[in-house]
C-alpha cells in the first residue's frame, strides 16, 4: 500500500521542479531583453549627443546641457581625443587620467564599437559604456550606471518569485487533494483484490468501467485457480492416503534428492529417510540406495530383513522405487516347506515299517509263530503311530479351522483321573519305546469348571506326554488351579532347560523333529502346537519358563467361555 505522503510527494515535487525551471527560463530571457533595451537606449543617447556636437552649438552651452542631462537621468558623456585624452566629461570637472586603455575606446578606435559593462574607474559604480568615433580624432563615449536597471530587474524577479510561490502552494493543495483521492481509490482497490483472492464473489464496485472489469476478470481467474488448487490438494491428499496405506514402501528419487517417500519405507528400512541420499549415514540404508541406483540386484538383506525392490525410471535421473518387506513371507515359505517335508517324513517312516512288515509276512507263509507275531506287532505299532499322528493332524486342523470354545460343565478331578489313565503307566502312545520311569505329582482343586473337557484333556495329556518324553529328570509336577477368570495349568519337569532362542519356536508344528531335541523319542511333534491353538481359542496364552527343579515349566492359561466379554 502506497502511503498518502508518498503519493503527495509524487505529484507535488515534479510540479514544483517544473515551476522553478520555468521561473529560471523567464528570468534569463528577461535579463537578455532588458540588456538589449538598455543598449538601445545608450545608443540612442549617443546619437543625440552626436547631433548636438554636429550642430556646432557654443561649446559652453552644450557642455552645460550635457552636465544637466547627467544630473537628471544619469547619462554621462565623455569626449576623448584619438590618443585617449579626456577632452570633456559631463560628470567630472577638471583633469581625468587618459582613457586610452578602456576596452570601449579601443573598439571605437578601430571602428568596431561595442557595449561594455564594467566597474567605472572614475565613479566606482557598475556602468555600461558605448563609444564611437565622431570625427577622425574625436571619440564620443556614452555611459550610464546600471543601478536603476538592476533594481528594476530585482523587483521583477521578486514578483516572479512570489508568483511562483503562490503557484507552488496551489499545486501543493491540489497534490494533497489528489493524493488523498488516489490513496482512497488504491485502498479500496487493494481491499477488493484481497477479497477477490480469498474467492469472495461479492466485490465492491468502482464507478469506472475499466477498473470494475479488471477486478471482475481478476476475481474470475482467481476463483478458477482456487478451484484448481482445491482439486489438486484433494488429489494429493488422496494419493498420499493411498500411498500411506499400501504395504509397500514407495520412494521417488530425483538424482540424489529423495523427493517423496511414504511412511512404510521408514518401517521397512528401519530408519528415518532424509531429503537427500547424501545425508544417509547408515551403511545398510546407503547400500540399499546404491543397489537401487545401479539396479544390480533386486533383493537385499539388511540384518534379519529381506527386502525386494522394483523400480521404474521416469528419465535419466528420476526414479521410482518400490520396496517390499519379504522377511515374513520368506520365513513363512521356509516354514511351509519345512512343514511339508516334516509331515511327509513323519508319515513315511511308520508307513515304510508297516509295508515292510506286511511284505515279510506275505512273502513267507511258512513263518514260525513267534516271528510272525513280532512282525505283526511292528505292523500294528506303526499303524497305531500313523493313526495317532493323523489324529493329531486332524485335531490341529480342526482347532485351526473351526475354533470354538464351549462352556461344558465338568469336574476337574474327573478330568484329571481320566488323564492319569491316559498317561500312566504306559504313556499315551501304545508301542512307545520310552518307558515311563518318572513320578508324576498331581496338584489340583476339586472344582467345577466350564470348558470343553476334550480340550482340557488334550492340553494336559500333550504337556504331560511332552514332559515324559523330553525331560531327563525323575519328577514331573502337574498343577491345575482355577483362578478368578481363568484356569491355570502348569507342567513342570526337571530339565534340561530349553534355551531362550527355542522358547518361542517350540510351539511350532514339528519343531521337535527338525531341531535340537532328540529324534528317537517319537511324538507327532504336534502336541505343543495343539496346546497353543487350544489356548488361543480360550483367549488364553502359553508360556514357558525355567523352574526351581532346573527344568522347564509350561504354563497354559485358559479363560472360561462363560467369562468371554
Amino acid at each position, binding site marked *: 500500500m502506497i502511503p498518502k505522503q508518498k503519493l503527495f510527494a509524487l505529484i507535488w515535487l515534479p510540479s514544483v521542479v517544473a515551476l522553478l525551471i520555468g521561473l529560471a527560463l523567464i528570468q534569463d530571457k528577461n535579463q537578455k531583453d532588458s540588456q538589449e533595451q538598455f543598449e538601445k537606449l545608450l545608443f540612442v543617447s549617443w546619437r543625440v549627443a552626436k547631433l548636438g556636437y554636429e550642430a556646432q552649438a557654443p561649446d559652453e552651452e552644450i557642455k552645460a546641457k550635457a552636465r544637466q542631462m547627467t544630473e537628471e537621468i544619469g547619462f554621462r558623456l565623455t569626449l576623448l581625443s584619438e590618443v585617449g585624452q579626456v577632452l570633456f566629461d559631463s560628470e567630472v570637472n577638471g583633469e581625468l587620467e587618459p582613457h586610452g586603455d578602456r576596452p570601449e575606446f579601443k573598439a571605437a578606435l578601430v571602428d568596431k564599437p561595442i557595449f561594455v559593462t564594467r566597474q567605472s574607474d572614475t565613479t566606482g559604480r557598475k556602468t555600461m559604456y558605448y563609444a564611437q568615433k565622431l570625427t577622425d580624432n574625436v571619440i564620443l563615449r556614452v555611459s550610464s550606471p546600471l543601478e536603476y536597471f538592476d533594481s528594476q530587474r530585482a523587483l521583477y524577479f521578486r514578483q516572479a518569485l512570489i508568483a511562483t510561490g503562490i503557484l507552488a502552494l496551489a499545486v501543493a493543495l491540489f497534490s494533497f487533494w489528489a493524493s488523498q483521492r488516489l490513496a482512497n481509490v488504491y485502498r479500496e482497490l487493494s481491499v477488493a483484490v484481497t477479497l477477490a483472492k480469498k474467492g469472495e464473489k461479492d466485490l465492491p464496485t468502482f464507478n469506472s468501467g475499466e477498473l470494475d472489469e479488471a477486478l471482475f476478470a481478476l476475481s474470475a481467474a482467481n476463483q478458477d485457480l482456487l478451484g484448481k488448487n482445491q482439486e489438486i490438494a484433494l488429489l494429493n491428499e488422496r494419493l498420499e492416503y493411498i500411498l500411506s496405506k499400501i504395504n509397500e514402501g514407495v520412494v521417488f528419487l530425483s538424482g*540424489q534428492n529423495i523427493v517423496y517417500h511414504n511412511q512404510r519405507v521408514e518401517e521397512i528400512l528401519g530408519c528415518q529417510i532424509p531429503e537427500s*541420499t*547424501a545425508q*544417509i*549415514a*547408515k*551403511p*545398510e*540404508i*546407503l*547400500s540399499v*540406495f*546404491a*543397489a537401487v*541406483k545401479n539396479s544390480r540386484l533386486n533383493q537385499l*538383506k*539388511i*540384518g534379519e530383513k529381506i527386502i525386494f525392490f522394483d523400480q521404474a525410471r521416469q528419465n535419466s535421473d528420476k526414479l521410482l522405487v518400490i520396496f517390499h518387506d519379504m522377511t515374513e513371507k520368506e520365513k513363512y515359505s521356509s516354514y511351509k516347506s519345512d512343514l511339508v517335508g516334516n509331515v511327509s517324513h513323519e508319515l513315511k517312516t511308520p508307513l515304510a515299517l508297516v509295508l515292510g512288515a506286511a511284505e515279510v509276512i506275505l512273502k513267507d507263509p511258512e513263518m514260525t509263530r513267534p516271528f510272525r507275531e513280532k512282525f505283526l506287532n511292528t505292523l500294528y505299532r506303526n499303524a497305531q503311530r500313523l493313526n495317532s499322528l493323523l489324529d493329531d493332524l486332524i485335531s490341529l486342523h480342526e482347532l485351526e479351522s473351526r475354533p470354538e470354545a464351549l462352556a461344558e460343565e465338568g469336574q476337574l478331578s474327573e478330568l484329571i483321573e481320566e488323564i492319569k489313565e491316559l498317561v500312566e503307566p504306559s504313556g499315551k502312545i501304545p508301542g512307545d519305546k520310552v518307558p515311563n520311569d518318572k513320578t508324576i505329582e498331581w496338584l489340583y482343586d476339586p472344582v467345577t469348571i466350564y470348558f470343553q473337557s476334550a480340550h482340557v484333556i488334550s492340553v494336559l495329556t500333550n504337556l504331560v506326554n511332552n514332559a515324559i518324553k523330553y525331560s531327563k529328570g525323575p519328577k514331573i509336577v502337574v498343577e491345575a488351579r482355577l483362578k478368578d477368570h481363568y484356569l491355570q495349568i502348569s507342567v513342570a519337569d526337571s530339565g534340561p532347560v530349553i*534355551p531362550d532362542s527355542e522358547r518361542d519356536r517350540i510351539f511350532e508344528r514339528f519343531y521337535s523333529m527338525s531341531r*535340537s531335541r532328540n529324534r528317537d523319542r517319537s511324538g507327532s511333534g504336534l502336541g505343543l502346537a495343539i496346546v497353543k491353538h487350544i489356548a488361543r481359542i480360550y483367549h488364553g496364552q502359553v508360556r514357558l519358563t525355567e523352574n526351581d527343579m532346573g527344568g522347564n515349566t509350561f504354563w497354559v492359561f485358559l479363560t472360561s467361555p462363560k467369562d468371554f466379554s
Partner: protein
Amino acid sequence: MEFMEIDIQNIKEKLSEMSVLVANMYMDAIRSLTVHDEVLAREVIGRDQEADTMALEIDEMCLRFLARYAPKAAELRFVVAILRLIVELERVGDHSKVMAKQALKYHLAPTLKSLPEFGEISILPYQMLSEAMDAFLGGWPEKFKILEKTDETVGALQKSLNESLVALIKKDTARTGSAIALINIIRRLERIADHAKNIAEMVPYLTVGEVAKG
C-alpha cells in the same frame, strides 16, 4: 565442486555396499557355525572373492578421485581414511571366510550348546562393526571411546571362553578338534572387534584431522 560431491557420494555408497556385504558374510558365517549349515558356509567362502573385488574397485575410485581433484583438507582425509577403512573391512571378510571354513570342517553346534557366552561374543563384534560404520558415515568422532569399552568386554569374554574350552578338552578329549576350532574362531571374533575399533578410531581423523589413539 558438484562433480566432486557426486564422486564422494559414489565412494560412500560403494563403501556401504562393501560394509553390508562383509557384515552379512560375518553374520552368515556365525549362523553356519551355530546351526551347521554347510550350504551357507560355502556361500560365505564364495562371497570373500566378491568383497576383495569390491575393495579393489573402491581403491580404484579413490585413486581416480585423487588424480582428478587433487583434494585438500577434509576431502583428502576422507580419501585417505577410506583407503585404510577398506583394508579393515577386507580383513573382516577374511576372518568370516575362515570361520565359515571351520564350520565346514567341524560340527560345532553340540559344543556351542554348552557355551552360552558364545552367543554374546558372536554378536558383539557385529554390533561394533555396525556402530563403527555408522560413526564413520555419520561423522561421530566420540564413538570410538564407547567401542573401546565393548572391545574390553569382548576380550574378557574371549578369556573366559578359552578357559571353558580348555576345561572341555581336559574333560572330553574327543572334542579336542572342535574346541581348538572354536578357540580359533573366538580369536577371529576378537580380531573383528579390533577392526571395528580401528574403524571408529579413524573418525576423529576424518572429521577434525586428529589422530585418536587408544
